[in-house]
């Protein structure tokens, strides 16, 4: 409850400074609209924003699910097969040196203007954090547990199942929470580069028509969706995996 009050306070103080800036600097509305005009724009364009937000939500959810699954599979592969670790890990790190922005036009070219290129974009952006977090957890299983397992005659697969995976669940959760924040970024980048729907598309459209209030309304909607997604996923992980995360 206390946290909730803090969040509201933070939000109100941003609104306060925003309003203050407008009162003193008096920028034209197409540069910085007032909070009130953004609210009005949100109300007037509610159905429009809703339709586009729905597309973005679908892209994010599919991207997040597939990205997390792929990341987990990769991390397990890296942990199980030494050769995979040697070959694939440097490649994985190298892939991170290419900005995702730079690939976005290519993805649109290859996969079209539809939802697929955005989903792939979201997958690309979250794949590494999930893989990296989960694999770190797996490979950092305390040696003393593995020693105990050795004296007990544990097999490698069962050590993975009963020791390494449970031990790495807190790391995996951090990775998934990070992914929940990054996935909307990936989807919106995809929408910016080429699309006919989604909040990113709506923002570009509003920007082009100097409807700055609509752009702000879309932007705030995206922010709200991202925070909701992050909190929801955090909460679900907390209740379903409490015994692993508690320590």
């Amino acid at each position: 409850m206390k946290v909730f009050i803090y969040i509201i306070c933070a939000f109100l103080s941003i609104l306060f400074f925003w309003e203050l800036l407008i009162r003193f600097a008096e920028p034209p509305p197409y540069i910085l609209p007032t909070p009130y005009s953004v609210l009005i724009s949100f109300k007037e364009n509610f159905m429009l924003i809703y339709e586009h937000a729905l597309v973005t939500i679908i892209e994010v959810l599919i991207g997040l699910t597939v990205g997390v699954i792929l990341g987990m599979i990769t991390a397990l592969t890296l942990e199980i097969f030494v050769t995979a670790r040697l070959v694939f890990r440097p490649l994985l790190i190298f892939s991170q040196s290419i900005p995702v922005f730079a690939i976005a036009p290519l993805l649109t070219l290859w996969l079209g203007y539809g939802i697929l290129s955005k989903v792939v974009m979201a997958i690309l952006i979250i794949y590494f954090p999930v893989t990296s977090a989960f694999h770190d957890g797996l490979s950092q299983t305390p040696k003393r547990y593995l020693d105990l397992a050795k004296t007990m005659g544990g097999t490698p697969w069962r050590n993975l199942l009963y020791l390494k995976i449970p031990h790495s669940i807190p790391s995996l959760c951090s990775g998934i929470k990070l992914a929940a924040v990054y996935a909307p970024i990936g989807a919106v980048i995809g929408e910016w580069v080429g699309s006919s729907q989604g909040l990113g598309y709506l923002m570009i459209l509003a920007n082009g028509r100097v409807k700055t209030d609509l752009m702000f309304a879309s932007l705030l909607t995206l922010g709200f969706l991202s925070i909701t997604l992050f909190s929801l996923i955090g909460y679900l992980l907390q209740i379903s995996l409490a015994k692993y995360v508690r320590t």
Partner: protein
Amino acid sequence: MSFASPSIELIGSVRSENEVLFRDLRLVIRANRWTCLLGSSGIGKSTVLRLIAGLPTHVKLDGSIKSDDRLSLSNRVSYMAQNDLLLPWASVSDNITLGSKLRGHKYSSEKKLKIIKKVGLIQHREKYPFQLSGGQRQRTALARTLMENTPIVLLDEPFGSLDSNTREEMIDLTFKSLKGKTVLFVTHDPHEAARLCDSIYILEHQKTTNNKGLKPPFPKTYSDKSVFDLQYSLLEKIKSKRS
């Protein structure tokens, strides 16, 4: 997997990369008894124990570890350390049966319950380690060792982190429940050594010596006068080696 408890003999020198850690070591761990490895902190007691347990170490043994029944030691040794090594995400009950799960074997629930009762954790069996006291955690570790039921048990200062009351209870319980096993007990405390073991090795880099312990029955009570006499003589020996 219960077999008759063998006696074990470790002979040889233990070397790390560029120095000899223990020269001409000869340890005889007799069947069905408690043998003590006494030595100051950091001397390498745990390393010797790890060698016997077949765990990776930074040292090499120029020599051999043999049992008198000529069977391999692997899968016949269980290990209980100062750190209870309980899995924080598993309940008491699940921690106890870890070995069977890791091997993919079925375990008898009856046996599990019997052991849980024996160590006095029946009301706590569904609790998680963080809900237990230090003594209860160590009881869980003991129950896990008992569930393994191996003929050889290695104890690495298992009472080290317990308060004195709990320690007394644990010493009694551990000694009783490990009856009939070949036990190597590693400690830095001459008092514990005197109370529990009839053969006590004082571990030194150059010359490790064997000392006769007290006569059975064990465990001796903490107020037993003969324990204090032996403790005193062991301390003197450790001191004289230092100077």
